[in-house]
Every structure is written in structure tokens, then in C-alpha cells.
């Protein structure tokens, strides 16, 4: 015990030393700005903005109407305030709703080298690097999809993987059938805003019986100043289809808060499986809580067919404020929904994240594993809903939420909601909150492991259950991200 006290007091003296503090201070390695010419709309939002975005994209009339309907609905909605986050009012008129690189690339070779460099710094496996990594990437740079790799190989398998704007042009009947069918235009405040002004995103369609030959991936990045990013992703897996989709996000360092309000819709028909993995590393603001991304995202999957499965895995280390609840509607009988999450907050970050599992079908199953880690002065909440409707005969849910506190000034919260209307359904929820125990630390320290390494080891172990669910290359990245994010948290 005594040795522990000595340890922490020596760490405090260390931190007082300015040089050491610099080393310990958290670094956001993705915080560079790419200087290329941008075109875009001036800040402001009205019907004209919505029409202009639709016109720039060359969208058909029905799409414009759909956007306008969502926009008019949005005007009637108040910004929700139930999440456990504090934020200044957002001025929706001060945001530019469209930004794109000026020179439109026709193929990957024509992509602005400065842009490719950006991706290179981020370590996105684009172009040749993509071939090595075996990942098909649809990179979204601000609002326009700059290049999609592996189109040909995917096309042979019958998989459609392109940007949303392209999909609206080329596969309007599929888009029209599924867009907004999971998250309707007026679903919630931020989803309505997104429906009105979304600029791009990814579109994936896996036809009946096809197992997608490779893991698909999109890399989002907010670059221009004062822009919001409103991407919209739609993934449809037909009967018996399988797909695994990876999403990564970064943004440069800026002092003002930027808004990111995305919508992701997943549709799984009979026997289909969708695995959606996210590593979210938006700029979290500096150590004084200045700047950072407001990440207000609506993600929802619909297990429409029997025996379908949707699995969400997320690692959330970035953003000043995260507010998202990837959900699954278990409509088909024996459908399975899973949610694995690691959310780490540091400094002044705030996260209110979790999931919703809505059980409608018979013998549907869901599993929720959520690991929250809070450090610094951050606030980290799990908020989840498990709902067993009357029709959910024999449905089953298991939820486990664990929180780890590092430091005295952070908060870790758990708000699970359970609503059960069927007597044959079983719902179980367990949650614990603790700090890294002195015993664990002592054990590591006694074996010559440095304090920071020990913490990172213990945190890694704490998150193992979730990392196991991530695709391999993401798991490595996630582990590294946690290490970087926790720098300077110990003491």
C-alpha cells in the first residue's frame, strides 16, 4: 500500500516538470490540415441550401423532394437535450453545408497528390497500398468521395460499392427502395438535418447469396474550416449475403467545434449478416477542452429477415462530444443483434453512447458489451435500451457494462433502460464501476513494468472482449489509439 502512495506522489512531481509534461501531453497525430482548393456553399441553411446541394449532386427530383421534406420536418423539431452532455448552443446558420475539392478526380491517378498524402499520413491503405492491405476503400474527403478502389473485383462478385451520390445516379431504384427505410427523414433532430443536407457517404449492396470477397472500408475526414460533415451510409445485404464494413474517422485540429451528424442505415434480409466496425478518432479538442468535433450520429440496423444478424463494434476515442446509439431492430424471427463498444474519454471529452435493441421477432437474441474508460475531467455515459415487445416470444438479451475510472475528476455513468412486455423473454443487465486496482498496479510495477505501460496493459485487458470482435487491422489500430489517448492520464 505504502509503495503505491509513494509511487503516485512521485508521479505528481514528475508531472510538475514542464519538459516531462510535454512528453506526457496527449498528441493528436492526425491533426494536420491539407491545403488544397475547396469549392463550397457559403454558411447558412434554408430551402435554397438544400436545393443547391441537390443540384450540385445532379440528383433526380424525388431525391430533392425527399430532402426538402426532411428539412421542413427538421424546422419543427427542437434540439434534444436529454443526453448527459454539456454543450453551447449550435448556430446552424454558421455552418457551411457543402465543401468539395475543386478539381474533380476522374480516376485515382488524378487525385490531388496533397490529398493522397493526407491519407498516407493517416495510414489509410489507398491506391497500391490498398492492394497490399487487401482493403477496398471509399475515402470521403469532406463531402465528396474521392476515389473508390477495388471496384472491379467487387463488381465481379456482384457487390455494389460506391459513393452515395453515385448510387443515387446509377442505382436509383435500390436507393429509393431502402433510403430512409431504417432511419426515416424525420426520425430525430440530427437525422432530419442529415437527411436534408447530406452530401455523400457510402453505398453498399450485396446481392442474394453473395459473401463479399473482401472487407469494405470508408475513411472519413473533416478538412475544411466551418464545415459540417453529413455523410449518409446505406448498406443492404440481400438474402444470405455477408459483409464486413470498416469505418474510420479523423479531423484536423481546430479551435472551434465542428458538427458531424451522420446517418448509417443497415438492412439485413433473411439469413444475411452485416458486421459494422468503427474506429472513431475525430479531433477531441485540446487538453483545455477547446475545439473538437461534435459527433452526433444516428446508426441503426434492421434485421428484416429471419435468421439475420447485425453486429456493431465501435472504438470511440475521439470527438469533443459523442452522442450515438447504434441500434438493431430485431424484426425477423431468430435474428441476432450484437453491440461491442469501447469508449474512452480524456481531458474535457464527453461521451453519451450505447445502443438500442428492439426485439420484435420470436427467439431473437441480443448481446451488449460496453466498456467505458474515463480519464482527466471527462464524462463517459452508457445509455442503452433493451425492449421486448409483446411479439418477442422467447427473446433473450444479455448486457454487460463496465466502467473504468482513471483520476479523481472524471465521471462514469450507466443508464440502461429495460422494457419487457413478454413473459417468456429474458433480459439480464450487469454493470460495474471501478478504478484500476492498486493490486493490479502493484503486481505490474513489482515486475518492472512502467506505470504507463502497466495502465495500458490493464486497459487493454479490460477492453479485450471488444477488441476480439474487431477485424485484425482495426484491432491493432484501436489498441494504438487507446495508448495514445491515455498518455498523460496516469498520476
Amino acid at each position, binding site marked *: 500500500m505504502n509503495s503505491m502512495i509513494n509511487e503516485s506522489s512521485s508521479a505528481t512531481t514528475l508531472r510538475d516538470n514542464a519538459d516531462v509534461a510535454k512528453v506526457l501531453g496527449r498528441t493528436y497525430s492526425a491533426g494536420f490540415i491539407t491545403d488544397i482548393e475547396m469549392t463550397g456553399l457559403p454558411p447558412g441553411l434554408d430551402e435554397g441550401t438544400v436545393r443547391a446541394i441537390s443540384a450540385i449532386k445532379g440528383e433526380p427530383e424525388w431525391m430533392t423532394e425527399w430532402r426538402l421534406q426532411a428539412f421542413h420536418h427538421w424546422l419543427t423539431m427542437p434540439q434534444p437535450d436529454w443526453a448527459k452532455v454539456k454543450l453551447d448552443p449550435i448556430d446552424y446558420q454558421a455552418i457551411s453545408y457543402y465543401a468539395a475539392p475543386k478539381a474533380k478526380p476522374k480516376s485515382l491517378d488524378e487525385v490531388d497528390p496533397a490529398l493522397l498524402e493526407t491519407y498516407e499520413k493517416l495510414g489509410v491503405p489507398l491506391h497500391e497500398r490498398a492492394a497490399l492491405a487487401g482493403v477496398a476503400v471509399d475515402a470521403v474527403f469532406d463531402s465528396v468521395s474521392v476515389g473508390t478502389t477495388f471496384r472491379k473485383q467487387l463488381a465481379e462478385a456482384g457487390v455494389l460499392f460506391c459513393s452515395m451520390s453515385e448510387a443515387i445516379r446509377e442505382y436509383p431504384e435500390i436507393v429509393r427502395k431502402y433510403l430512409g427505410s431504417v432511419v426515416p427523414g424525420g426520425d430525430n433532430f440530427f437525422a432530419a438535418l442529415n437527411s436534408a443536407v447530406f452530401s455523400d457517404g457510402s453505398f453498399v449492396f450485396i446481392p442474394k447469396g453473395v459473401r463479399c470477397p473482401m472487407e469494405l472500408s470508408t475513411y472519413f475526414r473533416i478538412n475544411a474550416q466551418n464545415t459540417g460533415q453529413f455523410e449518409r451510409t446505406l448498406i443492404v445485404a440481400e438474402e444470405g449475403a455477408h459483409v464486413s464494413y470498416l469505418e474510420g474517422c479523423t479531423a484536423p485540429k481546430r479551435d472551434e467545434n465542428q458538427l458531424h451528424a451522420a446517418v448509417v442505415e443497415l438492412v439485413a434480409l433473411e439469413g444475411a449478416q452485416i458486421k459494422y466496425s468503427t474506429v472513431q478518432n475525430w479531433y477531441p479538442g485540446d487538453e483545455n477542452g477547446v475545439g473538437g468535433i461534435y459527433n452526433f450520429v444516428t446508426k441503426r440496423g434492421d434485421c428484416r429477415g429471419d435468421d439475420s444478424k447485425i453486429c456493431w463494434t465501435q472504438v470511440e476515442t475521439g470527438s469533443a462530444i459523442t452522442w450515438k446509439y447504434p441500434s438493431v431492430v430485431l424484426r425477423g424471427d431468430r435474428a441476432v443483434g450484437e453491440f461491442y463498444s469501447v469508449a474512452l474519454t480524456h481531458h474535457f471529452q464527453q461521451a453519451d453512447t450505447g445502443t438500442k435493441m428492439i426485439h420484435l421477432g420470436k427467439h431473437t437474441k441480443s448481446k451488449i458489451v460496453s466498456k467505458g474508460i474515463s480519464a482527466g475531467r471527462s464524462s463517459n455515459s452508457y445509455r442503452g435500451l433493451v425492449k421486448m415487445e409483446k411479439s418477442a416470444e422467447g427473446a433473450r438479451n444479455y448486457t454487460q457494462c463496465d466502467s473504468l475510472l482513471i483520476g479523481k475528476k472524471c*465521471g462514469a455513468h450507466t443508464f440502461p433502460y429495460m422494457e419487457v412486455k413478454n413473459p417468456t*423473454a429474458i433480459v439480464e443487465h450487469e454493470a460495474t*464501476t471501478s478504478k484500476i486496482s492498486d493490486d493490479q498496479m502493484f503486481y505490474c510495477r513489482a515486475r518492472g513494468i512502467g506505470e504507463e505501460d502497466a495502465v495500458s496493459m490493464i486497459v487493454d485487458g479490460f477492453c479485450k472482449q471488444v477488441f476480439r470482435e474487431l477485424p485484425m487491422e482495426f484491432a491493432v489500430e484501436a489498441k494504438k489509439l487507446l495508448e495514445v489517448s491515455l498518455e498523460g492520464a496516469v498520476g
Partner: protein
Amino acid sequence: MNQPVSTPLVESLLEAPLAPSGIAWLDAARQENLAAFAASGLPDTHVEAWKYTALRMLGQRRFVALDMAAPASTVDAASLALPGVDGPRLVFVNGMFRAELSQVGNLPEGLTLQPLSQALAGDAEPLRFSLSRHYREPGDAFARINAARARDGVVLRVAAHVEITRPVHLVFIAAATEMDLAWHARNVIELGEGARLNLVEQHLASGEPTQLATLVSEIEVREGARLQLTVLQNAATSTHLIRHSGLRLQAQAQATLHVLELGGALVRHDLKVELIGDGAQLLTRGVFMPHGRQHIDTQLAIRHQALDTTSDSSWRGVANDRGRGVFRGAIMVAPGADGSDANLSNKNLLLSPSAEIDTKPELEIYADEVKAAHGATVGQLDERSLFYLRSRGIPLAEARALLTAAFCRAVLADLPNEALREHLSTLLVEQLPNT
């Protein structure tokens, strides 16, 4: 955002003018609370605390104030006795003290026990702090109307270092009257330093009264004092009962609560416990059994605000027929409340396809030297246990009854008063369906 909607219920509760009490600060506080109630109206389901309890139907009803109603039917004093509860007794019928039913002679030394109406007639000053309170939470509408309208209730004080050996019995009876009645009662309870008290609060009915009753209790447990509180809520299934209890535990104080929610139409209990002194300890056990069309909502909020405080809560729910059980168990550990140890569990059984359980255990943690855990389950009886019993020749219905009874009885295990425990246990089993 929410414009107060003036419903028939709100109108009827505001109808009668406030009778002056002759105490200036009290009248001012009552006026303010009444104005606050008029301004806020009833909370709708957008108010988080009322998410699962809709007041739409209740809001359409009208209830007359007590002094406008005819006197209630007679109550038999003998029917009030509870096994193991043989101490002084205070009885209220429709919120008004009834001396002929009560037993307050020969009070033990150090115990003050009198109805609020009498206490106010004497020196009201000691009650000033408790009765001047304002309720500010958006969901506190009923506490506001209670603060404005309550004329009677319990004033109980135990002097420092006094142990009251025999349990004190508080009885609230809803008795049928010609008109639908609204009544409000308010309790102020205080245990001095190192005092010990065993308290039993009982709600029951005479006839089938259709009423709206509110009860606000403020309980202060001072340093090192120990309170054992048992609540038996057995109101008529036509009575709407809304309770608001605030419990404050100072350093080294201990409180043990056992709550049985059996009766009532719409029942709501806001139970807020603040552990404000170092080393304070809380143990809560409860069971709610909505059946028929009952709606029973318990909102337990425990705040750990001092060092080395502990809380242990275990609540069980059994919902049958079209009954709906709502439970919220929120644990909050304030910044600096190191050494807090909080544990909460809520297990529920759903016995019918039309029954519903909504449960929401919450943790809100702002300190790191803590242990906090909660668990909640909703389901049915364990198949394996049923199989075990049946394989030993016990018929299915009986096996079910046995297991359900055991499930509920678990919450009584820590109740030291054996006679009372046996009685309550019998009541629980009687309430169970004969499956």
C-alpha cells in the same frame, strides 16, 4: 418546452382556497408551493422521472378536498394490529388524525410523537425548516401540492442516545366516502444522535375508496443513529397513492428499509436517500407486486456524498395480469465520496402476457475510489428449478407457487422482527396468483 396542461385533476386540486394556519411563514410556503403546482401542472412522460408512468388517465379525474367531503365510515381499531408491532400507534383516516384509534399514552422517555395538526397548534418553530421546503425538480408536482395542502401527518422525534425498544406504528387508512377524495399527509421524523428506532408505516383501506392520496416524509437520521423502517403498502386497488420520502443519513448513521408494495391503483414512491455523513450505511429491500390493472412505480435514488458510505439495495418485482411494475434504482457517487460501496439489484418476474416491467438501474459515478455495481433481470422462473421440484413429485402449479414465493420472500430475510416477518411473508404469499 412543456406548457402546463390544466387537467380536471389539477383544477380540482386547486379549487379549494388555502385555509390560513395563523403561522405567517407556513402560509407563505403553502402559497408558494400551490402557485408552483399551478404553474407546473402534472408532469408528462417527457419528464424523465415520469417516463413510464403516464398521468393522462388520472389527470382526467376529479377529487374533492377533504373538508368538502362527508365524514368517513367507521374503522375498527382492532383490525389495525400487526404482529410484532406493539408500540405506540398513530392513526390517520383520510389524512386526518384519529385519536380514538391511536395509542399515544405513556410514551417512552425521549420519544415525541404527535400529529402535525397538534404540533402546529403548539410551538411550530422547530418544524419551520422542514415545512418551508420547496420542491424544484420537474417531476415533483405531487410533493408541491402536498406541501401546500397537507394539514396533518406525523411529527416524531427521538432524543439523542435514546433507544425506543417497541416498534412505533404509523397507520394511514383510506376510508370510503361518498365523493372521490384527495388527501395529503406530511411526516417529519428525526432521530437524534445515537438514537434507535423501529418504525412501521402501514397503508390500508376501509371499503373501496376511490381516492388520491399524497404522503411526503422527511426523515433525518443523525450521527450514529439507527433506523429500522418497514413499509407495508396495502391500499385499496381503487386508491391512487403517491409518496415522496426523503431520508438523510449523517455520519455513522444506519438505516434499514423494507418496503412491500402490494395494493393501490396507481402507486408511485419517490425514495431519495442522501448519505451525507462519513460511514453512513443504508440497506434497502423491497418487493412490488402489481396485478389486475395496478401500476406500481418505485423511484429509488441513493446519493453517496461522504467518505466510506455503503448502500446495498435489492428489489424484486412480480407482475401479473395486466399489472405494470416500474423501477428506477439510481446510485450517485458525488465527487470526493471515496470509499463508497454501492450495490443494487432488481430482479423481476413476468407472469402474464399482458403484464409489463420497465426497469432502469443507473450509476452516476464521480469519484474513483469506489465500488459500484448494479444488476437487473426480467424473466420467468428458472426451468431447471421447476424441473427439480417436479422430478420430486411436486405438481407444476405447486412448484411454481413455491418458487415465486421464495423469490419474493428473499427481500424479507434481513428483517429482524420475527413476528412481523412471518406476517408479511404470509401477506406476500396470499398476493401471489394460484398458478
